[in-house]
């Protein structure tokens, strides 16, 4: 089977990439577009470190065939802010020490963004459920949940969006 040229809409840009057959979205984002916030964790859909938004919906790039993405808009952590500035959700992670090794963090932030975009004032239980597909092996989750609570509070104070 031959390589294919596909087009992807990623972080507001139209990208043309040559992919190998059955390349995953994760492969393309990391290896072709150098968007390395997308982490390669379990490759099984079990850890959430490769989480991205596809048309605003949380999805796992490791289980997504790149050529099936079609016209959908893909957002990675790098696309949260056009100027690469820290967004309030990331600031809340920093202030709450919600990252240690950092490997899960980008996926956690994307899961938190997907949650807050749908539910700007989640309860603690709703935050836990919203992050339930993302594993952290350092922090014990409590600081991450606090960060999302703080971000939700900050958003309700300012009326801004999650990022």
């Amino acid at each position: 089977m031959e390589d294919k040229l596909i087009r992807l809409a990623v972080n507001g840009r139209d990208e043309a990439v040559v992919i190998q057959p059955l390349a995953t979205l994760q492969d393309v984002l990391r290896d072709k577009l150098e968007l390395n916030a997308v982490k390669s964790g379990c490759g099984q859909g079990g850890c959430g470190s490769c989480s991205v938004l596809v048309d605003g919906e949380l999805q796992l790039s490791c289980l997504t065939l790149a050529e099936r993405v079609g016209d959908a808009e893909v957002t990675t952590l790098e696309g949260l802010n056009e100027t690469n500035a820290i967004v309030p959700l990331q600031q809340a992670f920093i202030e709450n020490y919600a990252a240690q090794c950092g490997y899960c963090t980008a996926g956690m932030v994307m899961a938190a963004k997907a949650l807050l975009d749908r539910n700007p004032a989640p309860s603690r239980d709703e935050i836990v459920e919203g992050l339930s597909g993302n594993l952290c092996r350092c922090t014990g989750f409590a600081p991450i949940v606090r960060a999302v609570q703080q971000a939700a509070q900050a958003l309700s104070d300012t009326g801004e969006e999650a990022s």
Partner: protein
Amino acid sequence: MPELLRPGSIDEAADLIARHGAAAAVLAGGTSLMRETYPSDGGYLIGVDRLGLDRVVARDGGWSVGAAVSLSVLREAVPIAALQAATREIGGPAVQNMATVGGNLFARAPFGDLAPALLALGAQLVFATADGETTQPIEDFYAGWADGAPPSTGLLTRIELDAPSGDCAYLKCARRRYSTPSVVTVAASVQKDGGTVTDARIALSGAHAQPTRCAAAEQAVIGSSLDEAAIAAAASATEGAVEPRTDAVASDWYRRRMTGVFVGRALAALA
């Protein structure tokens, strides 16, 4: 390396499945199949993303659910509490956005938590084959499984679901709260006339090689008022009827015990 085929019509997809037989695997949300697909594999992946199977249509007295509808869309579109509970028990939010209703019905134990809910709700499955469309009750579909593997049925295109006339309860026994394989999953629905149960559908996954209804438990509650004695009898009958297996999640002994316990809890919720 398997070749990805993306047919543009249901007829074309059914023909591809008939032509390639066991060499073909249907790729829907990918949350199971992508994990099991390796570059060294041969065969064909038949994508169903261009077939228009990703819609829920509300019809008179129920819903037609496309087989490629995601679990999160199902939860939004079909307001049956037991079914909504089931969708939240499968993976995390990202998996629920990707995994499909149809795909989950082919998942093997200890996955596939949607099946008991659809068994208890009396869903009908519609398949497209090279010879035309066939419809069968979901319990007949699972009765056709051998050694925990589905039969060759053609392409599952939709799930027909009538609005439930009685109450339905859904419970999953698992090691963690979220995003976890099941020890056992139980769904129960009952019809009552006055206080007396006139019909019951009690469904299990994790209790046999594939999801099933539990006739012994159903017989134990039909005609009763779902009193404590009847619920205890149903739980006991369940434990006597099941043939669970041992895996990394749970032993057969533990699964058998929990199947009885959770059937009892589900029925108590309906009493």
